[in-house]
């Protein structure tokens, strides 16, 4: 009996000790690995998507800065950044992908103002493309430095054009011209009396509304951001054109058609459809070149996104910011300076993910011709399109996710024929304005 008691006591103590030790060990491990240390080196953590180019970028930097070690913390989703910031283990350099997030972080006082460092470290902010301003400034402060960018262009399959006897499009072409070409390139086959699409002339995604909102000079929001202006005639006209592309002329696939045309049967995006020649033209950014250039039998080129009376295209980028709580600010700035440096920008130029953000003749020359990919003869177009490129609009009075949810819901109803384009625009305006009114009345929704 007494022996059993001793055993029970021993087990009790062992249980408590093991449980507590486990919890402490996990805690110590998490804290220790959050900011790794290396003797004689300053380690900085770079939160950005784990693109294969990162390794080369880090290697290039560490070659010239042996006392700094850069670790790519893969992924820079806002959840990850916020958790790290809240847990007081901030990244040293973090990527932010859209102007509204930049403004959100800056508004909440998270981002370091880089203005004092611009002169000290000679950061060439003045040589960045002017259209990248929303990625750089917040209320006069410099809160981000974009390393690369990409205006949306139109990729087209040259082989399909040749086979259809359609001349290749030229930069500056219009939406009406594009529609005529798309009609010629759209192909169906008959299956038991049913017309089944084999190829569509053009792919425009369900979220690509900016081209059509801006097509006739319209805007989603008023200049002060307090009113949604989706119901203006300029926007309605553009949305009508967009709807006609799909519902009247059938030159762009519906969601179901896109899925059924995909070689995988149900999934895969526009890039896959383009690579498989199921769509002849596709609007996207420079980053798709990485996929397309690897497919040797794909003969493709780029041309400007068609335009209406208002010539404009969408601009995508990301910026690098430093949190105020960063523990290695000088090293982080040094790294950002390196990212804007000639060698790194040339790396970006050759890689294909985007175009360099510096408007520097030496760098742009390298971007225009990459001897490894001699078929990419039209890279200059990306540079030229920067004149027309514009970042997506946002209002500080409504979260972009709410805007996207409303747009997608009511545009879905339009695609399903449940409401006309004009009705969709009216409903979207009314719903977005209702949220803006609520948010203005209760600023808690605006954080």
């Amino acid at each position: 009996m007494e022996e059993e008691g001793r055993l029970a006591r021993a087990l009790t103590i062992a249980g408590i000790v093991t449980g507590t030790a486990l919890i402490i060990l996990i805690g110590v491990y998490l804290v220790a690995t959050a900011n790794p240390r290396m003797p004689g080196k300053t380690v900085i953590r770079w939160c950005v998507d784990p693109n294969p180019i990162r390794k080369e970028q880090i290697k290039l930097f560490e070659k010239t800065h042996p006392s700094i070690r850069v670790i790519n913390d893969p992924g820079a989703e806002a959840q990850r950044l916020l958790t790290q910031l809240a847990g007081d283990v901030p990244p040293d350099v973090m990527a932010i992908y859209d102007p509204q997030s930049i403004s959100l972080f800056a508004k909440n006082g998270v981002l370091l103002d880089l203005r004092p460092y611009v002169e000290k470290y000679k950061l060439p902010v003045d040589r960045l493309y002017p259209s990248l301003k929303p990625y750089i400034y917040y209320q006069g402060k410099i809160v981000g430095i974009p390393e690369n960018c990409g205006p949306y262009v139109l990729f087209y399959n040259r082989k399909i054009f040749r086979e259809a006897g359609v001349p290749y499009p030229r930069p500056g072409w219009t939406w009406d011209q594009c529609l005529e070409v798309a009609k010629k390139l759209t192909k169906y086959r008959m299956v038991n009396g049913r017309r089944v699409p084999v190829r569509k002339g053009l792919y425009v995604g369900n979220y690509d509304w900016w081209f059509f909102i801006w097509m006739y000079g319209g805007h989603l929001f008023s200049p002060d951001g307090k009113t949604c202006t989706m119901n203006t005639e300029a926007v309605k006209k553009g949305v009508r054109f967009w709807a006609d592309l799909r519902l009247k002329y059938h030159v762009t696939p519906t969601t179901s058609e896109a899925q059924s045309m995909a070689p995988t049967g149900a999934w895969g995006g526009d890039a896959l459809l383009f690579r498989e020649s199921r769509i002849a033209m596709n609007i996207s950014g420079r980053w798709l070149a990485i996929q397309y250039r690897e497919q040797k039998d794909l003969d493709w080129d780029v041309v400007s996104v068609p335009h209406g009376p208002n010539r404009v295209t969408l601009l995508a980028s990301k910026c690098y910011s430093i949190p105020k709580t960063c523990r290695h600010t000088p090293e982080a700035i040094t790294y950002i300076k390196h990212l804007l440096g000639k060698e790194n920008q040339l790396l970006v130029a050759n890689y294909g993910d985007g175009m360099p953000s510096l408007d520097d003749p030496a760098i742009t020359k390298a971007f225009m011709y990459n001897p490894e990919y001699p078929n990419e003869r039209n890279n200059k177009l990306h540079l030229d399109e920067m004149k027309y490129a514009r970042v997506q609009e946002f209002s500080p009075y409504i979260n972009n996710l709410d805007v996207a949810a409303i747009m997608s819901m009511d545009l879905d109803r339009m695609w399903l024929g449940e409401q006309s384009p004009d009705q969709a625009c009216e409903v979207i305006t009314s719903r977005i304005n209702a949220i803006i009114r609520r948010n203005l009345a209760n600023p808690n929704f605006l954080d």
Partner: protein
Amino acid sequence: MRHKQRETLAAYGFLMPNFLGFMLFTSIPVVLSLIMAFTHWNIFKAPFWVGLENFTSLLWFHRESGRLVPNDPFFWQYVYNTVFLMSGIPVGMAGSLIVALMMNQKLKGIVIFRTIYFLPAVCSGVALLILWKYLYNADIGLINKMIRLAGEQVYRSKLTAIPFTAVCALFFGVTATGAVGAILSLLQWLAGKMRFTWREGLLRVLTIASGAAIFILIGAFGRGFYSGVSGFFVNPPDWLGTVQWAKPSLILMGLWGGLGGYNMILYLAALQGVPTSYYEAAEIDGAGPWSKFWAVTWPMISPTTFFILVMSIIGGFQGGFMVANVMTGGGPAGSTTTVEYYLYQTAFEKFNMGYASAIAWFIFAVILVLTLVTWKLGGRVVTYE
């Protein structure tokens, strides 16, 4: 120290690691989330107290141009979607029971069938969802291909089209009448358990009257019924691409996965726990298979039915995230977005933690009420041995 005290201490010792983990990772966060539901917290700044504001913004309505409009423009639509998707629960349970009854037969190789029916539960969820997305594809999906194939054969000539439509009408009418009958039986049963008695024969009269009404309606709208059925077979729907079909499609898919999964295993275990002596006694009293089921099996497995119902309600209200994320993106027109998906978006995409906590506590409150109601009703109808 006395022996009993030592044993108690040992028990606490063994429980301690789990208890610490539970406190640290479950209990404390749950309590904190309740507090957070009354605060505004965007993670950047310290939370501050806002009282009931999150709940009024989430649940309440206001007047706009004379119309009653929800304060939250999305929430009630997502609640409706969630409840709609939960309507498959009773059918799924009935299906699981039927499969379990089949799997309970003493046949050679029954273990293989049990394994096959359990397979959906062990397969990768995402892979299955992609597979179903393919099956449901409007143009190349297997389901529409089969429907079209049948339609092309049948609706080629009126000689086959009319009898086929008549069979469809019969099937539709009988199914609808059966459904009405089942609902009325359930109501009568529940009423009986709560000591409200229906007049003798009322159930039969009501069922027959509804059946007659259904068949009269089919007859009256015969032409419309014909064009509806022929339209369905010649040009089948875009299952996941239309607001009308997206939710029913997801329910059907859920039934496939749910029939042979854990619910079947639970029912199988319950069926195998019913003493054979009860069946023998029933046989001696002259009971047939149907009577044996209603008089012996059903009451004996009622605790399992009750457990599955409660768990399904809990799971149903918490579900929908993976489906929305992988298959439909919550569309079309938000018709497959559930409350759980909205909770995720609010917390981890919009960083409105206080509001998200209010959503979480709303879900908890609904589950609690539904469970209590089920418990209250179930307590009266469940038979414990």
